[in-house]
């Protein structure tokens, strides 16, 4: 018997079972690399996980975009049993940086007290923040050795630019920072005469115009030239 190209499926059990539509409204689903706006359907939850810039609808089936940007599909992580790819939306506006535990930040010292130092966090890794955050360096976090014999006034002065690592989110008022490593500590400071000081050891900095030596907890910076404009 000759089979025509337009043959209707034979009415048997198999045809009746396979009635579920596979593709949701084709006009709503976006293909890769197209621009998504909030609310648009990016994919189905059986095939994708919702990544950044997207969320799972309350009914649990569709994944919608939450910001405007390009749709991108990431392959599933190699080390987990998850088989689904991640779909995310890459927005064009970058958000201000926010300190996270474990990242290196640059902060400027505002207040020096007997047991701790207050500093304003200005940069997170290499990104400047949009609004400044407050950080605290406690006496026990200034250095790794002899932590009970630390003199805060001989480690930091107000106005010093300090490289520190974020220990934790801290309390409601400030992040907890630490300079207890060789490469952390004062990066740039001004002497009492007003000139930018040169580091001469890990505890001392010298003013180039007067020759006066002041005590600081100095960071061991590997680059040969490090210039900060205060």
């Amino acid at each position: 018997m000759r089979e025509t190209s337009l043959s209707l499926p034979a009415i048997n059990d198999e045809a009746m079972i396979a009635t579920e539509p596979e593709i949701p409204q084709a006009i709503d689903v976006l293909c890769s690399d197209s621009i998504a706006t909030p609310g648009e359907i990016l994919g189905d939850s059986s095939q994708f996980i919702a990544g950044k810039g997207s969320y799972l609808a309350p009914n649990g089936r569709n994944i919608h975009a939450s910001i405007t940007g390009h749709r991108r599909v990431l392959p599933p992580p190699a080390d987990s049993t998850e088989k689904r790819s991640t779909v995310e939306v890459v927005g064009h506006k970058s958000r201000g940086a926010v300190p996270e535990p474990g990242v290196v930040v640059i902060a400027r010292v505002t207040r020096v007290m007997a047991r701790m130092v207050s500093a304003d966090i200005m940069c997170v890794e290499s990104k400047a923040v949009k609004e400044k955050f407050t950080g605290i360096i406690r006496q026990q976090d200034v250095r790794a050795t002899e932590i009970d014999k630390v003199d805060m006034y001989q480690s930091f002065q107000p106005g010093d630019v300090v490289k520190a690592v974020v220990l934790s989110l801290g309390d409601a008022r400030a992040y907890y920072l630490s300079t207890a490593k060789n490469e952390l500590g004062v990066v740039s400071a001004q002497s009492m005469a007003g000139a930018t000081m040169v580091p001469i050891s890990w505890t001392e900095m010298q003013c180039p115009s007067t020759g006066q030596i002041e005590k600081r907890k100095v960071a061991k910076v590997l680059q040969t030239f490090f210039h900060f404009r205060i």
Partner: protein
Amino acid sequence: MEYINPLTGFRLDGRRPNEMRQIRGEVGVVARADGSAVFEMGNTKVIAAVYGPREVQNKSQQIDNQALVRCEYSMSNFSTGNRARKYKGDRRSTEISLVIRQTMEAAILTHLMPRSQIDIFLQVLQADGGTRSACINAATLALADAGIPMRDLVTSCSAGYLCSTPLLDLNYVEDSAGGPDVTVGTLVKMDKVTLLQMDAKLPIDMFADVMQLAIEGCKAIANYIREVLSENSKKLECMKGN
């Protein structure tokens, strides 16, 4: 006064009963704000500026598990026909601010930004009816421009009932006629209504028609807003050099 010409069926400004005024939207108009937009519906022109998410200024209002959304609506002195000094705290402005705040809060994914604050400032530059709707549309554009995550675009349109006909997108003259004015705000892709307001009275079967007409208007505005956002995204990509 005949709001619909009995012979031609046109309204006072030459539109058909189910025709919306010309809309125009533009993002990125306020350089300092995180997100901003201008939205025009006919002669009604509104500017929206969004700041956030940023640290809560008044710590007593801070919410631990979600963002605080604040909204301020104000009309410029020169926005209406006669230059009237409008006090910022007057009842109508306060009510509209509250209404718009609730509408936008329903759409923003506030649980992603705990202990932060999102400010929406709306300024009416020209008022010719439908300022509430224009403000919501402008706020949606501004929030999308700021990159604040939202469930869906919130769009709003008004509809009324004059001379036994449902009319879409009333202007000031039609609004002052004393007939009912239904303002609807919807999440179009989710097919959900977030704002429904009406003044004056309307029989319930007419109300269904008028509300449906307003929802159709919302869908049309949503399509336009999506186009504006896509164009803006493409333009930014070109400028970035991708």
